[in-house]
């Protein structure tokens, strides 16, 4: 068990809807930006401005004029309560401001007070409130306890999406110089260096060379991990975590093997060495666009014909749903393929075409289940049919391993629970929120382990993988129970030239 400065919730058989208990998470405050340049690099004031009150209202007014979602969502809520038991953060913290509508109301009450007739003249009647320093701090604390996972929006009769509200709130906070350290520091890094982890080009090159050597040592095959290769067919854009930590890097090895076997030339790029786009988390169109444009630049620079994204949830949302808007049109790419493609779509096609030689038994040491990442599940698609985002990753997993079972129906697919660390919360200063937010997923996993003998959970999101690696031990599980989907693919994939020599070698090395 990891040590914690807070009470780690104990997993029960079910996640019961708790009675509300006000203020249980009011003390959780993600670190605020301390170095002004982390704000100014993003185009925001370096620190909280003096006239924040008026500036915040101005920004709110500006945003509701530019985003229909915000305007309609602020107006339309009837407080029916449908969303109140849907958020993973509420379910285990009991804090009513972590209920989707409770979270939204922090902004809505201010909107009503200053921008609606009823709120201006009858504030008490309609629950409208002045914007005070207290409310501002509530915004900061609670909008940074929302992983923007959109689970609530599935259940709202009007599709009100708390993610939209929390993005708007974060943009307002940024616009008055009250930004969150974690997100803003990372975005500043992407703008400067090219990826979230701040890995410079040579470091990436080093890692990739190392991987190539490992391939030769392990399989006797020259599997390449190309970087900045002009004229390659495919540009692979993947989260930078794939370059250096387990289990992410095993996923990267998987991609490499797949490309190798498919015989499709590919490359990664130092310009676009990051699939993630935290611009989305802070709701800033401008920053999101700036980050997204690197992908376009890299594709043009390298003269590729296709763009494929690696395993990352919010990155896939930005890629699938926003990239064409932010950095399109992509008419210079091969029109026969969707732009961009998900690596799972790519691999799934190859499997269907029978172009990969797979030995499922290589994964026989595991009984697998799959965690649907929230952004993939509720904000994107794979393939050409609705719901392909659920089927395609499962098809891939089932094609490469013998033992697969799903977790409880209410915790997968469009109803999937967030890992607890998405949306810009993947920072140690939010550990209490993250551990609590993981409870519904951990409960479902534990049940699957007890009832169906599940040993490992696969995911296609860098944030999910990092989050689970960190929180699994809090619940008495092992951190390596979380695996990459393409790690499984990599395990099962028999490399062509490996067959002749590899077969005997395999026998010798068998343990």
């Amino acid at each position, binding site marked *: 068990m990891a040590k914690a400065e807070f009470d780690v919730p104990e997993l029960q058989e079910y996640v019961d809807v708790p009675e509300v208990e006000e203020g249980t998470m009011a003390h959780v405050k993600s670190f605020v930006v301390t170095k002004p340049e982390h704000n100014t690099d993003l185009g925001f004031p370096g620190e909280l401005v003096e006239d924040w009150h008026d500036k915040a209202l101005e920004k709110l007014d500006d945003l509701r004029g530019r985003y229909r979602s915000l305007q309609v969502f602020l107006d339309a809520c009837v407080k029916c309560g449908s969303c109140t038991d849907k958020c993973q953060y509420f379910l285990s913290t009991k804090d009513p401001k972590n209920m989707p509508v409770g979270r939204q109301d922090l902004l809505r009450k201010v909107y009503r007070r200053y921008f609606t007739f009823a709120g201006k003249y009858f504030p008490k009647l309609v629950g409208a409130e002045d914007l005070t320093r207290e409310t501002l701090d509530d915004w900061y604390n609670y909008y940074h306890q929302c992983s923007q996972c959109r689970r609530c929006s599935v259940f*709202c009769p009007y*599709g009100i999406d708390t993610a939209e509200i929390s993005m708007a709130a974060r943009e307002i906070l940024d616009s008055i110089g009250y930004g969150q350290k974690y997100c803003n520091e990372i975005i500043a890094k992407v703008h400067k260096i090219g990826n979230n982890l701040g890995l410079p080009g040579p470091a990436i090159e080093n890692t990739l060379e190392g991987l190539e050597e490992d391939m030769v040592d392990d399989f006797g095959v020259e599997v390449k991990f190309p970087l900045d290769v002009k004229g390659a067919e495919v540009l692979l854009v993947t989260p930078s975590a794939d370059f250096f930590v387990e289990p992410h890097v095993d996923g990267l090895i998987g991609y490499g093997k797949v490309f190798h076997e498919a015989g499709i030339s590919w490359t990664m790029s130092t310009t676009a060495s990051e699939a993630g786009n935290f611009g989305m988390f802070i709701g800033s169109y401008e920053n999101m666009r700036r980050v997204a444009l690197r992908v376009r630049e890299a594709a043009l620079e390298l003269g590729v014909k296709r763009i494929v994204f690696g395993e990352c949830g919010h990155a896939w949302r930005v890629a699938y749903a926003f990239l064409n808007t932010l950095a399109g049109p992509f008419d210079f790419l091969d029109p026969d393929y969707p732009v961009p493609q998900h690596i799972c779509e790519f691999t799934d096609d190859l499997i269907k075409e029978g172009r990969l030689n797979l030995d499922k038994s290589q994964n026989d040491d595991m009984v697998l289940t799959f965690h649907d990442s929230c952004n993939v599940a509720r904000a994107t698609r794979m393939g050409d049919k*609705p719901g392909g985002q659920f089927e395609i990753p499962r098809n891939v997993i089932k094609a490469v391993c013998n033992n697969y079972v799903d977790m409880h129906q209410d915790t997968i697919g*469009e109803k999937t629970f967030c890992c607890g660390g998405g949306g810009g919360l993947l920072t140690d200063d939010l550990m209490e929120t993250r551990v609590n937010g993981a409870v519904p997923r951990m409960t479902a996993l534990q049940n699957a382990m007890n009832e169906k003998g599940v040993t490992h959970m696969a995911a296609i999101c860098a944030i999910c993988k990092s989050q689970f690696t960190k929180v699994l031990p809090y619940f008495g599980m092992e951190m390596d129970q979380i695996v990459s989907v393409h790690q499984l693919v990599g395990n099962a994939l028999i490399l062509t030239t490996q067959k002749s020599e590899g077969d005997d070698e395999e026998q010798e090395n068998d343990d």
Partner: protein
Amino acid sequence: MSFFFALLFILASLVFVVGLTLKIIQYAKTPVPLKIVTTPAPVTKSGVVLRMFREVVFFESLFKSTKWTWIFSWVFHMALLLVLIRHLRYFIEPDAVPAVVWTLIELVQPFGMYAGFGMVLGLVGLFLRRVLVDRVRYISAPSDYLMLLMLGFIGFSGLMMTFVVHTDIVAIKQFFTFNGGQLPADFPLIIHLSLVALLMLIFPFSKLLHVPGIFFSPTRNQVDNPREKRHIVPWAKALEEEQN
């Protein structure tokens, strides 16, 4: 009294129509810069029409979420619809509309009469839920209770007229079709009409904006085709041109 109600209803109608129109214009004019549809979502326009139909008529998402709220809410809304269709006969002459429409209005009459009970029942359920479930109580402002009470009393006073103390429908119809009738001075009718006027007055300023809102909700009404078709709004386009 008739004079007072005439004024009140002219004012209420004006506020209702103008207010609602302005809101609809505001929603329609506000851009949607990004594709944010909640997936899995239809990939064609006709698919979206179907999805919206299921949301508006069956409250599909609410059904997925909580069966109790759904039951009360759906009974309330469907009963309300029947009641409102039945009410049309107070405002239109049979020969002013196509025969089918009138037949429909006539057809609904018996159902509409009893639908009033459904409406009140649904409202009672929703009210109890608001009072009894601590999560819903926490998010409720006074206006949320009052809205239900108001609708409840409209229904109750209407039912009183229909089943207990009948009122002079012909006179009411004459009044509302500008044929110079005097409103009967019946207590339930006064309550009924005052609250209905209030309902119309607050409509554009309250959560009743969920009615136009649902049709404008981007997470429900967008087609899921961002890769196939580039989506860009004027302000985003301007930003793009400014920076390129």
